[in-house]
């Protein structure tokens, strides 16, 4: 397997421009400027079948081709560096270690769509990362890669970094554009799509950092090379963010289609403390959870994960062992989306909070069996009925956690407490006398999703 996204592991100081240049850096830009027309660049990226790494997996070349060729307005490229999906940390490493690949990707994208201005919308918490990126940008400007006349080609590109102020919704592409324009980051209705009316009313391409850092490699080595990695429907390498109850958490560059089982047990060194795998969220907290049985059968590419009932999203793979309370995980997920809902659309604004309140009650042992039905119905009512997909980002976990771990949710109701908590038996409990006798150590075995399925049915 060849690494190209995480070359910094092999090349010390790759973030410095001399080192980056010494390893072929800005060669792709030279090629794009002097050997290729914008159409050829777009076609090459189209042929490579590079799909957006920000979560939606939309083909990048196709996205670029939506920009009107004869636009009388300026065209903008926006680099989405507002990485904030829970469980995701790829962009952060890229900013720290390979900023010139991002800059080169931006410059090629600008050339392809005829843009002279790129805004890098960077997550506000990325303070160090911003400094590193700005330093790299300074180097690139000094060497004539960025500025009024890129490499003497007569083509000018200016790159401006805009820092966010800590809202998850600014990572949604139209929320990002609103925020960039100085407004409240309320996602926009589409149509019009950003390609027609994006930043400041002008045609705009919004690409994720990881998407853009794939671009120089595709241009340098060609679409055919790119397609040698991963399945034809989603080629290339992917940065996997492995976290949770895993022995070797971290960022891994692997080809698309890599088996999740191998990611967990081989690459990630297996489950922490030698425990049993219980569940995996494959794509960042927004997406449906896999049970252990499902997880070990899945290959990690956009289409395979989708076929298995979830989405690869940002490839933020979160691993949970058998001591994890799934009610608490879902409550935590709900807390995040409740906190981060911008509040523009009614179903999301009110539904995320409602779901969190119900889950707080359930986790505290004050839930009722009917609450599970209410949760599912609220999630269904939120889904697909809002301007952006933040509502779906909570709806999908709710609608996968509850059916897949229903027995565990019901156990909270029956016991009147959380069986995974040390103090689970004492507070809040209104009934559930047999919960008192449970020790936390004993609970996981009894409560694993598979073993209690029959119990749950018997209870009903």
């Amino acid at each position, binding site marked *: 397997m060849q690494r190209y996204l995480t070359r910094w592991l092999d090349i010390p100081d790759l973030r410095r421009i001399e080192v980056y240049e010494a390893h072929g850096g800005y060669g792709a830009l030279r090629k794009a400027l002097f050997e290729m027309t914008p159409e050829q660049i777009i076609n090459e990226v189209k042929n490579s079948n590079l799909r957006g790494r920000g979560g939606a997996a939309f083909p990048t070349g196709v996205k670029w081709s939506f920009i009107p060729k004869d636009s009388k307005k300026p065209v903008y490229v926006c680099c989405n560096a507002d990485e904030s999906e829970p469980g995701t940390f790829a962009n952060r490493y890229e900013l720290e270690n390979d900023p010139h690949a991002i800059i080169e990707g931006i410059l090629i994208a600008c050339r392809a769509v005829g843009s002279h201005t790129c805004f890098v919308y960077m997550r506000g918490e990325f303070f160090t990362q911003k400094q590193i990126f700005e330093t790299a940008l300074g180097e690139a400007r000094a060497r004539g890669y960025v500025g009024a006349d890129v490499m003497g080609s007569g083509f000018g590109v200016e790159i401006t970094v805009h820092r966010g102020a800590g809202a998850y919704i600014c990572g949604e592409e139209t929320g990002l554009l609103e925020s960039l324009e100085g407004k409240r980051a*309320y996602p926009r209705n589409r149509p019009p799509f950003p390609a027609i009316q994006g930043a400041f009313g002008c045609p705009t391409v919004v690409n994720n950092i990881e998407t853009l850092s794939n671009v120089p490699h595709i241009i340098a080595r060609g679409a055919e090379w790119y397609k040698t990695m991963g399945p034809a429907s989603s080629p290339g390498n992917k940065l996997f963010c492995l976290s949770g109850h895993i022995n070797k958490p971290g960022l891994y560059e692997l080809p698309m289609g890599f088996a999740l089982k191998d990611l967990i047990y081989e690459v990630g060194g297996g489950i922490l403390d030698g425990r049993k795998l219980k569940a995996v969220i494959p794509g960042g907290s927004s997406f449906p959870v896999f049970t252990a049985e499902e997880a070990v059968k899945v290959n990690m590419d956009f289409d395979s994960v989708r076929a298995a009932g979830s989405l690869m999203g940002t490839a933020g793979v979160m691993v949970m062992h058998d001591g994890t309370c799934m009610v608490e995980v879902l409550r935590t997920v709900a807390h995040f989306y409740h906190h981060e809902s911008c509040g523009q659309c009614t179903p999301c*604004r009110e539904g995320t909070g409602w779901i969190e*309140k119900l889950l707080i009650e359930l986790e505290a042992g004050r839930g009722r069996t009917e609450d599970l039905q209410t949760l599912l119905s609220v999630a269904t009512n939120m889904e697909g009925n809002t301007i952006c997909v933040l509502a779906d980002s909570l709806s999908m976990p709710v609608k996968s956690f509850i059916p897949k771990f229903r027995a565990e949710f019901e156990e909270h109701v029956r016991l009147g407490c959380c069986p995974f908590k040390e103090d689970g038996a004492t507070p809040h409990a209104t009934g559930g006398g047999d919960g008192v006798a449970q020790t936390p150590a004993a609970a996981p075995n009894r409560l694993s999703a598979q073993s209690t399925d029959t119990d749950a049915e018997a209870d009903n």
Partner: protein
Amino acid sequence: MPKLTIDDRQVEVPDGINLIEAARLCGVEIPHYCYHPALAVVGNCRMCLVEVEKAPKLQIACNTRATDGMVVRTRSERTQAAQRAVLEFLLVNHPIDCPVCDQAGECKLQDYYMDFDRQPSRFERGRKNHKGKALDIGGGLMLDQERCVLCARCTRFFDDVTHTSELAIFERGDHNVIDIYPGRKVDNSYALNTVDICPVGALTEKDFRFRMRVWYLHRTPSVCGGCERGCAIDIHHHRGRIYRFKPRHNPEVNGYWMCDAGRRSFPALQSESRLTAPLKPAGERMAPIGWDAALAEAAAKIAELSHAHGPSAIGAVAGAHSTNEEAFALKRLMAAIGSGRIAALAWSPADAPRDDNLLIRANRNPNARGLAAIGIGADGIGPLGEAAAAGEIKMLIAMRADLVRALGEPEFVRRFGPLDYLLVLDTDANETGQMANLVLPIAAYPELDGSFTNFKGQVQRLCKAFDPPGEARSAIEILDALAARLAGAAPRPGEAPLAAGAVFAEMATAEPAFAGLTLDGLGEHGAPSRTPTA
């Protein structure tokens, strides 16, 4: 003209309109909170979700353009499920305090709940979010953040219509609130329009709230008499009292809005100073006399003075608050007398606002152009006043013309001091009335049928909301009675008073500006007068 199907109805609609408007054209209501035809589409409330054939997801009707061949279902199971869901969400954190909410009865949460939901609450777990209540945010507005559905109509109104942006959304998610910026209050001339467009009880009018439950109010279409714009309004009244003015949509005049000053102009129409009986000086004071005696005296004075000094010794002034019919009736009376001395008084107070870019006009007279179209007032009252000062005029009929206030007392005395007889027709006791030999109480415009012509020449209909107070009568009835007495016709008790429509019909024959128009034919939006008169 795209043809589409909405709930199995085939409909052809104008190009470029959205599904809410298209449905409205075929009598189908698609419920909505955030959409307003005069504001930018934001699509945040999600109440207007409808099923559109071939679209996998439900579509918001406000942001979906009606296109050819589209099949829309506004009452399908999926659509109804979404409507119920959105209403349920809207009520999750709503205080449900209808019994003490002043919006009750005209609240879209109540209406849509009854029309589209009627489900029991499932929100029983956990506490509702609490937000600010009864906040005085300036501009005569009271804000209840808990009742707010965050449709952002108010913020868009201040952003896009008044360009003052006093309101914004603060916080995030279900903590979102509409609020003013720290240390700044709502301060613009159109703030109360946000009360009209607020679909719920979040924004209420400080002056109106808790005065009257809205289901007791009757609505009568009329025209605001506050300035020469003549915004179309509905008069909301109960038992002969006006409780509020609301703008009535008229694309030719005011769109959906009216100014706050116009909205607040109604208390002056029902103040303590309203005249309720004909008055005649009796020693130091004015004393009531009967109508018959009053009309007999007025007619006798006209006859006596025109006989003694010629018809030109009778002059008349019509205030530009007079309706077209009143002005025409006065002109007709003067013609019957044989005097051409008739002038218009179009006076605006010194502190009147200037013209602005939206609705407000510096000329505070609602019918200045109408009087001009009837041929009254091209020269103002200057020549008439000088003729009176020269002693050429012995008797003046002043209708809705508070000359003392307009001219100031010294100037009034200089010009009109030589008069033998001053006959005043007015709604309220005023200084001119104090100087009069006879004061006849007349109906204010909410008590009248008739019309105003606004400064652009749009002739709009006023409808009578209720009877004038006490013995006050409509001015056309009085002028007609005077004309009848002068002609020697015996008063016929019990005869129906002259209808404004009949005067209008005569005016349409006599005055080219009104040719071809009828009062009933003016409709909701009025009609342009025929000859522009600058």
